[in-house]
């Protein structure tokens, strides 16, 4: 791992057009700043992966960054719809986005398989649902010992995974805590991993439930204080619930959305 690099350099070096990109963080620690940098650099044709697309992917989809989406719950948590996601799927604006959808258990296990470099994972679920019609990502296997039939999901191995964390140390090891979601698996499943952090410290504190990722599984670390806003970083910020609620109005209307993009220096990306 190199010394910390600026975020624009990390994204320019590691995120390419057409890549499969996972930005993970389950409500907590969502890497919004990195997402905006990806849009600002005009990346196109991405296959985006995220359990909960959330406002972060609603923005990227509206900005025309994604051609495909792998996900498991596409709502604005506690608020309602993701209107940009809906507009892309229902009306193909700014263009059509093809969805591949899992349950949470399914996508979590797809990352688990990816982190272990296994081609698939087994779980108790899916049976009898119409999600099984997506036979390229959801299938069945039979237990060789009991004959029981179980669900199987195809592994997810992103080209790039991006996460936000609280801390890096001087060597570039990364520490995150609180709700750590599926970030460990998403990082270890990826070919390349980028982490934005709140700050760099000499030594990690004691933290129950912390995940520590050694520097040698990461490609880049960038210091981006508040890089999860309007999501949050436990110990540094709280979730900006107002922004999430206000997003509903912004995202409902294409014009309002484009105005938001312009105000935030993301208009070049919104080329629809």
């Amino acid at each position: 791992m190199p010394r910390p690099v600026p975020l624009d350099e990390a994204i320019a070096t590691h995120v390419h057009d057409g890549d499969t990109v996972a930005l993970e963080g389950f409500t907590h620690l969502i890497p919004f700043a990195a997402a905006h940098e990806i849009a600002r650099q005009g990346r196109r044709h991405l296959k985006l992966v995220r359990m909960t697309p959330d406002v972060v992917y609603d923005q990227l989809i509206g900005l025309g960054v994604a051609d495909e989406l792998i996900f498991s719950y596409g709502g604005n948590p506690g608020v309602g719809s993701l209107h940009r996601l809906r507009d892309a799927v229902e009306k193909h604006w700014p263009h059509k986005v093809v969805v591949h959808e899992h349950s949470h258990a399914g996508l979590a296990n797809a990352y688990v398989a990816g982190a272990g470099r296994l081609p698939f994972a087994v779980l108790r679920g899916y049976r009898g649902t119409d999600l099984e019609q997506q036979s390229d990502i959801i299938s069945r296997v039979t237990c060789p010992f009991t004959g029981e039939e179980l669900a199987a999901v195809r592994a997810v191995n992103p080209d790039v995974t991006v996460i936000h964390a609280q801390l890096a140390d001087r060597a570039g090891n990364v520490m995150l805590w609180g709700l750590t979601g599926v970030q460990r698996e998403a990082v270890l499943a990826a070919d390349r991993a980028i982490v934005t952090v709140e700050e760099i410290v000499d030594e990690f504190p004691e933290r129950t439930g912390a995940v520590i990722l050694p520097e040698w599984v990461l490609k880049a670390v960038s210091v981006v204080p508040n890089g999860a806003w309007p999501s949050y970083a436990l110990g540094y910020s709280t979730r900006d619930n107002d922004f999430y609620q206000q997003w509903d109005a912004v995202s409902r209307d294409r014009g309002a959305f484009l105005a938001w993009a312009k105000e935030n220096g993301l208009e070049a990306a919104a080329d629809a």
Partner: protein
Amino acid sequence: MPENWNSADMMNVAAARELHDGNVCLVGVGPPNLAANLARHTHAPDCRLVYESGAIDAKPRRLPLSIGDDDLAATATSVVSVPEMFNYWVGAGRIDVGFLGAAQIDKFGNINTTVIGDHDNPKTRLPGAGGAPEIAANAGRVIVIVKQSTRTFVEKVDFVTSVGYGPTGRERQAPGAGPTLVITDHGVLEPDPETNELTMTRLHPGVTVEQARAATGWDLKFAADIQSVPEPTETELDMLRRLRAREVIDA
């Protein structure tokens, strides 16, 4: 209907009452979140709230807005990763009660939260599955909380996101008991012990059989000994208001 509560209040109160001390409850966003916290702050202080974001035994001091609020991790006995949550806790059958919502539900308790219309070219794109399919399959009891209307209570769901009792009510193979209760703004439905067809067994105060029938997209059956749900108590309504106002409440 009296002036100090409405049908949404009644729905949440009725759901909360189904949760008992000692129950391990998987809590999702929306009404389940309200109902579970209402139960914990009234009759079931020792029910155990599990959030799919990873918080086990969360004791939020005020109603969380999302299932990832910082208060959940801060007050939980243990915080686990999302894969562990789904594999070792939900999938392993450690959840006694799972609350689910629905955009559509059919008479055999099969649930759609994915799309209205065709999957690849939907009329309405809904949020999708989330934790529901595995909660529906593996929780000991599944309680569906949903407002009753001909738009939601349909003969056939457009997409089966979570399996209740299967297309004809006889296909359920999962470990849990399935949707044992559907709690609506009209009353409570339960699967018929023989056929698994959702049957109205209780009505909320002031709701008539005719109203419930009119709000259902299939020929709704009613239990012979249909009961009336006791109306919300002052204690329940007061706590409901405080939770909605996001007051800090000591457990």
